[in-house]
């Protein structure tokens, strides 16, 4: 079972590394969207600093959202998803493997580059650490919850915007707590509460979301 997890994870990672440029794409999208704001709103340092946590979190959220169809879309279209469902291994394990691969390829890079963007947006150094931490806890939840949405919409052609519609409302709590943590940290206050909340949500989604995703996939496959 662990072997099945590992194999699928390895396949997805291999597939991603095969398209090396693809690897960097969510990252670049993230950086691009963040940098749209100084251009569209203002280059003024003070105002930017104030907006920074929110803007960075919203951009991270959007770039995870947009990379979500990586999760099952292709597998659905070429029939591999059918093969996965016909695997003797429990579907939940396979879902977890796919989500893990997705996070390693999109969430993790965002976490790593975020401090740099924080720097560009004048986030104070100590808050930058909190930014990373909040993203580290938050982005896996985005992938996990996103997987439910993708598995529901994967059969719908042009599901991109439909997906956002379904998923964004679910993302909002993470967004609020994540951005707020950074905000509060910029003011030099303690962020224990926010971090605990994010941790709790993460624990909950790891245990529940794959189940929901597996059910959703079975529904989708029944075409």
């Amino acid at each position, binding site marked *: 079972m662990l072997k099945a997890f590992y194999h*699928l994870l390895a*396949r997805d990672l291999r*597939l991603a590394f095969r398209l090396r440029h693809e690897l960097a794409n969510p990252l670049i999208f993230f950086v691009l969207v963040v940098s749209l704001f100084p251009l569209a709103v203002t280059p003024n340092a003070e105002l930017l600093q104030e907006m920074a946590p929110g803007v960075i979190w919203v951009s991270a959220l959007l770039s995870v959202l947009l990379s979500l169809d990586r999760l099952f879309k292709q597998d659905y279209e070429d029939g591999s998803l059918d093969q*996965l469902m016909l695997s*003797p291994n429990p579907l939940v394990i396979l879902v977890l493997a796919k989500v893990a691969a997705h996070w390693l390829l999109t969430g993790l890079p965002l976490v790593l580059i975020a401090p740099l963007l924080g720097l560009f947006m004048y986030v104070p150094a100590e808050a930058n650490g909190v930014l990373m931490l909040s993203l580290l806890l938050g982005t896996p939840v985005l992938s996990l919850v996103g997987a439910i949405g993708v598995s529901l919409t994967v059969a719908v052609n042009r599901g991109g915007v439909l997906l956002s519609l379904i998923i964004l409302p679910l993302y909002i709590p993470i967004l609020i707590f994540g951005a707020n943590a950074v905000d509060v940290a910029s003011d030099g206050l303690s962020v224990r509460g926010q971090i605990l909340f994010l941790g709790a949500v993460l624990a909950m989604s790891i245990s529940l979301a794959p189940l929901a995703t597996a059910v959703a996939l079975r529904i989708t496959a029944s075409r």
Partner: protein
Amino acid sequence: MSNTNTSPSILETRQLECVRDDRLLFSGLSITLAAGEVLQIEGANGSGKTSLLRILCGLRRADAGEVLWQGEEVSGVREDYYANMIYIGHLPCIKGDLTTLENIRSLLDTRSQSVPLDEIDQALAKVGLAGFDDVPAKALSSGQRRRILLAFILLAKARLWIMDEPLTALDVQGVALVESMLLEHREAGGSAIFTTHHGMQLPCEMRSVTLGIQQAGKC
């Protein structure tokens, strides 16, 4: 016959029914497949062959009736069923970005099978893909891509093959290959269910079920 639980059937359906949109595709369909039997599902375009095969695999739920694997309801013995069955649908299941070899490897991985390299090479040679093992699948023609699946079937060593239009895109040699594969499989005691529009001539006894004409296909 379909009610004797003692029969050595490996796959059995009871009173299957499938409705799509408003139309009843089939109902009361009872099929029994024993080990070493090959069954062709016939029927005109749109008669419900693909739908039936997906129901047999457990990918789609029947609107009524049940599917039994070695006498037990499929949903109860999923793991065992899926370890012994292989399904090849209309869709290619091939990742254009992976090489032929990697594609086969990852297909086998989903079945938790690991197969030594030389065995894979043999299978590739058999399906006419020798030398293509490190070519990305997207640079293959449509027929070559289908041949990857044939190699997968060979390597999976499943007892039951379910194949939807296995001859799609294959040239004459490809068709002959599938025929010989089916024969060998049958000789080794395996069973198969397939659909095809393009006359496959098997020099062995082969049952067939026709959908669409008689409303309740029985056999």
